[in-house]
């Protein structure tokens, strides 16, 4: 019996590693130079955004989560930090940048997303 329980535990650990770290989430391709990002219920929607390289685009954030943590948007590699007012559209302009993966997150990193520029 214990063997099965232990095996189940190990599989659970494997699943945690796979689901949270190894799985490559699908990325949403930006169209028409801008995309709306909803900040709600603990996540950015979409959280993974693909942006063409060397082209300036706009991310339009709408925060519907009153948690103060969600208020700050940081894209450290691009030196962007913005305050997202509640229930307002805040447009963040991403300057034309070279290819790379640029994470964005809230102050406490509970909200996390990635900007894939390629």
């Amino acid at each position, binding site marked *: 019996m*214990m063997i099965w329980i232990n095996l189940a535990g190990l599989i*659970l650990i494997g699943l945690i590693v796979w689901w949270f770290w190894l799985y490559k989430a699908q990325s949403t391709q930006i169209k028409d130079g801008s995309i709306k990002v909803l900040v709600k219920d603990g996540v950015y929607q979409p959280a993974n955004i693909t942006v063409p390289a060397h082209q300036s685009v706009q991310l339009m954030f709408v925060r519907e989560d009153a948690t*103060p943590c969600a208020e700050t948007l*940081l894209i450290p590699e691009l030196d962007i930090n913005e305050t997202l007012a*509640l229930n307002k559209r805040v447009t963040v302009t991403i300057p034309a940048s070279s290819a790379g993966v640029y994470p964005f997150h809230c*102050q*406490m*990193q509970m*909200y996390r997303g990635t900007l894939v520029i390629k």
Partner: protein
Amino acid sequence: MNSKTDDAKIHSCCGGDKKVSTASKAVESETHTEQVSASSGELQLNIQGASCASCVSKIEAALKQVSGVTNAEMNFAERSVLVMGSSSSHALIKAVEQAGYNATLANTDSDEAAIEEKEQADWAYYKKLMRDMVIALSLGVPLMLYGLVTGEMSVNTTTERIVWLIVGIMTLGVMVFSGRHFYVGAWNSFKNHAANMDTLIALGTGTAWLYSMVVVFFPGYVPEMARHVYFEATAMIIGLINLGLALEIKARGKTSEAIKRLIGLQAKTARVIRDGHDIDIPIEDVLLNDLIRVRPGERISVDGLVVEGQTSIDESMLTGEPMPIEKRKDDEVVAGTINKSGSIVFRAERVGKDTALAQIINMVKRAQNSKPPIGRLADMISAYFVPVVMIIAVISALAWLNYGPSPEVAFAIVSATTVLIIACPCALGLATPMSVMVGVGKAAEAGVLIRNGEALQSASKITTMVLDKTGTITEGAPKVTDVVIVSDHSHNDVLSLAASLESGSEHPLAMAIVESAKEQGVPIHSVTDFQSIAGKGVEAMLNSQRLLFGNEKLMIDQGIELHHYIDKAQRLAADAKTPMYFAIDSTLVAVIAVADPIKSDSIDAIKRLQHNGIRVVMLTGDNRLTAKAVARKAGIADYVAEVMPEDKANKILELQREGEIVGMTGDGINDAPALAHANVGFAIGTGTDVAIESADITLMRGSLHGLADAIAVSKATLRNIKQNLFGAFIYNVAGIPFAAGVFYPFLGILLNPVIAGAAMAFSSLTVVTNANRLRLFKAKEH
């Protein structure tokens, strides 16, 4: 549904954003709507009463019929509509109302309105969290007390099963009502392959509840000793974490007090003189070159130049300089400062987002959100934290099932739940930003603008401070102190000729001579063939005479005999004066000395720096003797004289090679390369030009005390960050193993999940409260 906003911002196609004040005002005041109608571009309205998607086309059609509107696009999800073209907001709102809905102007850009809205939103969220907390604790507390008093939380009889089933359903109610946001957040994160604090709370409380329900429904499958229910833990944890979040919101509000104070400095209206009449208009409507009248006690509304009257102005709120500054015609006045004594009229030179105050607010806001490098480790840990905690919870449960005492299942469930609940990624995540927020704000209150978190951290580590002499240690306004006539020329002749020659130069010493000539009313003539000899002096022709003015090097180069006047010059230099030689047609005619007095508080401020263990080095292009005298007066042992501007940067590099962490303070213009090479560049501003400086740290007042304040506040902030990080690390590093039961074999104790919930809830609060302690920090001037 989005909230209704009161302000409007019209993106004008003609460039620049034009703001108008509240919607209600816009609707009420014809002047205001006219202002809107004059602009063409985009305008956003918030719509109320649109409950179905079909309303979209109706509203869009109504708006498109308004004259001047080229397009209207409604976003149903946001209940907002973007109107393009040129039309008055009044007409647009009326059109929407006629279509059967309500509309208000949207998209505020006013800092004050934004703060107000944020406070309202925070208050609403605080009330919600407190309500959720009361509901959860009103079930959790009686249950916990019952458990503590009777020790009976197990399921053995049918009656107990029924009672606990009812309690279980009530707990589910609490989970849905008071803890819904945790579960929804956890589920959404999970779908996105992410995990956060919600995940831990949801898993912890969910596991406790599910296990309890299994005990209630299938007690036969659970060993008798493990038939314990944990409904009280679920309810208590949800209640306590909501309480922690609510208190955190309250504490967070205090961290932004400094920025609120700065925003509060902005005047709301200005008294503009139009067509010969004084009219009060909203500050957003002030245009460039408007003439604005300010009476005693009133606030300056925008940046400008005084055109009439004279007064004294209190600039302390921006620069930290306590003494009011005298202002007369052609002097600059800055938005946010207070007119003390006289009545003045000034011309608006910078309005809206271009004013120094608006730029300072913007800079402080940005700096408050930026992170110093010290926070990077915590960020890296945060990124992996939650899944690691989940794995630890699984390992802990397995360890108890394999090696734990009876009842293994109960121990396994308790330990896994407690591990999930006690772990607090938030305390780690908050440790750095909260302190930066308060520290940068505190610095701004003292007239110190810190560009970003990196500058803040570097400033706390400075070991050597390099100070430029002119304008930094000294007033930067040299005056002629001695004119030693060597030939048969009169004093006035010498001053007149010297001033004529120097009028072509922009060197501060040259300006001192020209100023002196003007003061004494001697004529200044035009010269020809003016030439500046870098680092040495100037020469030019006047009435066929060759005029030469400069230092000893220049005279020696030109073969001019200085006789014993070198001694005289050296004596002047030893008295902290800068001696220069004046020759006509290769004959020395005078030695002129100029002195730049040391600022009254430079000596004290330098002492403060040295007292804090910082080595102070003075750099100057001035001659060795003068430099020595000034350094001695200022209490500086290390000085480097006769430094060309380009060599200043090399000196910084040299100090860095010696292992020093170097701060460089200069006026920000001539010293740009040195400022850029230093670990931290400090620019000394004069109150108005500060916001455009590009230094790491800008001192808004001329006093070097600002420098000591900047370093003191950086050190205090870094100390605070370290306390927070240490606390958060230790909390998790000690708390998680404790929760997993690592100490059970030695001490026989296992942490109760409810205590873990309380600890978790208050760990973030402790971090925010500790950051708030920084608000009490006061830099000492002595």
